């Protein structure tokens, strides 16, 4: 058995990572305890007192809009005996009262009142020392709010690194996007990394896994059904970044997975905006706006721009993941188009999404097979396009040889391996100093 979980030099990973509870426990510490994790979008908590309850790894957190417009997040755990503080998914509240004994906290996390405080605690309860446990760092990019438990983590812009340049045209320069909630939620019997790695860079599976969805649905990707053609050379890009986030680009594929009249309307909307953006931001980035991006913000936050799919794969255990599915949509889309789009996103990639179910089947089987005593010791292969990865002066990140490749798998697991093998962010950063070389020099 190869000794390492992750073999960067050859683009391989030990299958055990998809089912081992021991690996999972370590991940909660070294991955979810350290990385920037998606929390919510500003459009879902616009006003003072608005909150959502979401997950960071196996922890529940309350994310709450403060009086000054800033955002804080806290463990959803009462400081007294540890009961769940807020059982709701979203709302507006001036504070949170625990159902067990009635300790009451403000939306800023301060412990404000304790029933019969004076009679029962003889002045020995210091409320200032019993505020809710606060998430160390909160920041946002283009309205997407992320939190991080580790004070030593790099800033969110640094953490996102090279993928920002690709996301900016659609998420920001377009006039901005919003998330439409509430999310669909379901539980799949898959390790959280299996969907994360698929979204980060698997254009390879589309024609085969989704053969039936492509044939029945009639999207712009339909010619790929049954692997009857390979997208032509130059159809897109694949890139990865220092901290594992990565994405694929399919040029000009704005209507994405949508079908019928909706696809035509979307194409027209995207084209018209691209024409306008060419004047404002130049042809190159305007084209990225209208191109279909699949990606994952490391570790567990995936998206398909243009198709409008936005996901958090929340780990429950090594073999169980809760899927949260939102709709991501350009703010200035006309409201009737937005509504049809929203429903089509859930129809394709929601809880009852017929594309999504094709994918989940693979993710569940990768996880199921990883429990095999012999199978788990074997190495998985992400070598497509290895030795073809390069630096490109016009394109940020490490860029793969073609749109169909596994460059962003390799980048994702390179960083994952660094995290799992390090005791601090300083060590992680040192290991990643020559991250580009590590990927470019990788070979079979």
């Amino acid at each position: 058995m190869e000794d390492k979980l992750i073999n960067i030099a050859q683009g391989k990973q030990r299958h055990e990572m998809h089912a081992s509870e021991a690996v999972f426990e370590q991940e909660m510490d070294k991955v979810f305890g350290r990385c920037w994790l998606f929390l919510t979008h500003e459009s879902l908590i616009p006003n003072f007192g608005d909150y959502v309850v979401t997950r960071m790894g196996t922890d529940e957190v309350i994310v709450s809009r403060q009086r000054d417009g800033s955002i804080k997040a806290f463990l959803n755990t009462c400081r007294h005996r540890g009961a769940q503080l807020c059982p709701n998914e979203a709302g507006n509240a001036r504070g949170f009262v625990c159902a067990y004994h009635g300790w009451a906290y403000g939306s800023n996390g301060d412990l404000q009142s304790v029933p019969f405080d004076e009679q029962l605690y003889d002045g020995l309860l210091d409320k200032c020392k019993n505020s809710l446990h606060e998430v160390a760092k909160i920041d946002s990019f283009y309205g997407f709010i992320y939190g991080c438990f580790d004070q030593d983590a790099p800033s969110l812009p640094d953490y996102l690194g090279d993928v920002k340049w690709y996301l900016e045209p659609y998420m920001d320069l377009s006039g901005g996007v919003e998330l439409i909630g509430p999310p669909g939620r379901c539980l799949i019997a898959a390790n959280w990394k299996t969907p994360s790695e698929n979204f980060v860079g698997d254009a390879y599976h589309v024609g085969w896994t989704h053969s039936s969805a492509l044939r029945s649905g009639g999207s712009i990707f339909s010619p790929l059904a049954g692997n009857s053609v390979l997208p032509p050379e130059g159809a897109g890009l694949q890139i990865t970044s220092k901290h594992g986030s990565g994405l694929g680009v399919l040029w000009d594929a704005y209507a994405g997975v949508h079908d019928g009249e909706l696809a035509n309307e979307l194409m027209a909307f995207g084209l018209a905006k691209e024409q306008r953006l060419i004047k404002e931001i130049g042809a190159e980035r305007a084209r990225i706006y209208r191109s279909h991006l699949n990606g994952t913000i490391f570790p567990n936050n995936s998206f398909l721009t243009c198709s409008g799919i936005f996901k958090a794969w929340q780990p429950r255990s090594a073999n169980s993941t809760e899927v949260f599915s939102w709709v991501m949509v350009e703010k200035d889309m006309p409201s009737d188009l937005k509504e049809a789009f929203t429903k089509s996103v859930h129809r394709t990639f929601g809880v009852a999404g017929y594309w999504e179910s094709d994918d989940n089947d693979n993710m569940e089987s990768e996880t199921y097979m990883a429990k095999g005593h012999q199978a788990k010791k074997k190495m998985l292969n992400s070598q497509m396009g290895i030795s073809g990865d390069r630096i490109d002066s016009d394109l940020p990140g490490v860029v793969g040889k073609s749109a169909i490749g596994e460059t962003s798998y390799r980048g994702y697991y390179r960083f994952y391996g660094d995290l799992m093998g390090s005791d601090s962010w300083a060590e992680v950063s040192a290991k990643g100093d020559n991250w580009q070389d590590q990927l470019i020099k990788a070979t079979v």
Partner: protein
Amino acid sequence: MSEKTVKTKEPLVTKRAQDLQALFVQPASEETYHAVEKFLYKEARLLDSKMFRTWLQDVVSEDVRYIVTSTELRANNERRYDLPDQVYLFDDDYRQLSIRVEHDLDPQNWRSSPQEVYCRFVTNIEVFETDDPQEFTVRSNCLLIRSRRSYQTDQFFCTRVDVLRQDAGPSGFKLKSRTIDYPERCVSGHNMLVYL
């Protein structure tokens, strides 16, 4: 946070359930009741047998609207947070249901081979008249158990509110609309690629 809140309004979800009662007023005749019962059992049989194309043809009306929502969990006394609390897991017309059916039956739908097996239990059937003598509101509960591969059994359960229209075809009625607010917020059954 010492202020005591006094509940003055029903929570939104309670209000929705109560508003629905307006549809359940005038029970239909015994004869209609039995015809509807037969229709629902036939539908369950076709779906359990994966005869999806026959289901579309004989049971589903071409102007159908098939809706399954999932409702976000909010506090009973929530007043100020007014973003939508429902997500449409399904909001399909006939064409969209046909896409799902063809997706499932496609020879390259890998997840459908070997086949999943279904068993539906339809109960608590109530049939009510509407303003239109040809149409009836039908409330029923459905428990669907799905067995998949050798290691997976899933349960789906819900209350369905249907509008059926009398029809000269082989089933006696056609399904004009089905509306389900799915009770389980986080769907434990992997996906909802089933017709409830």
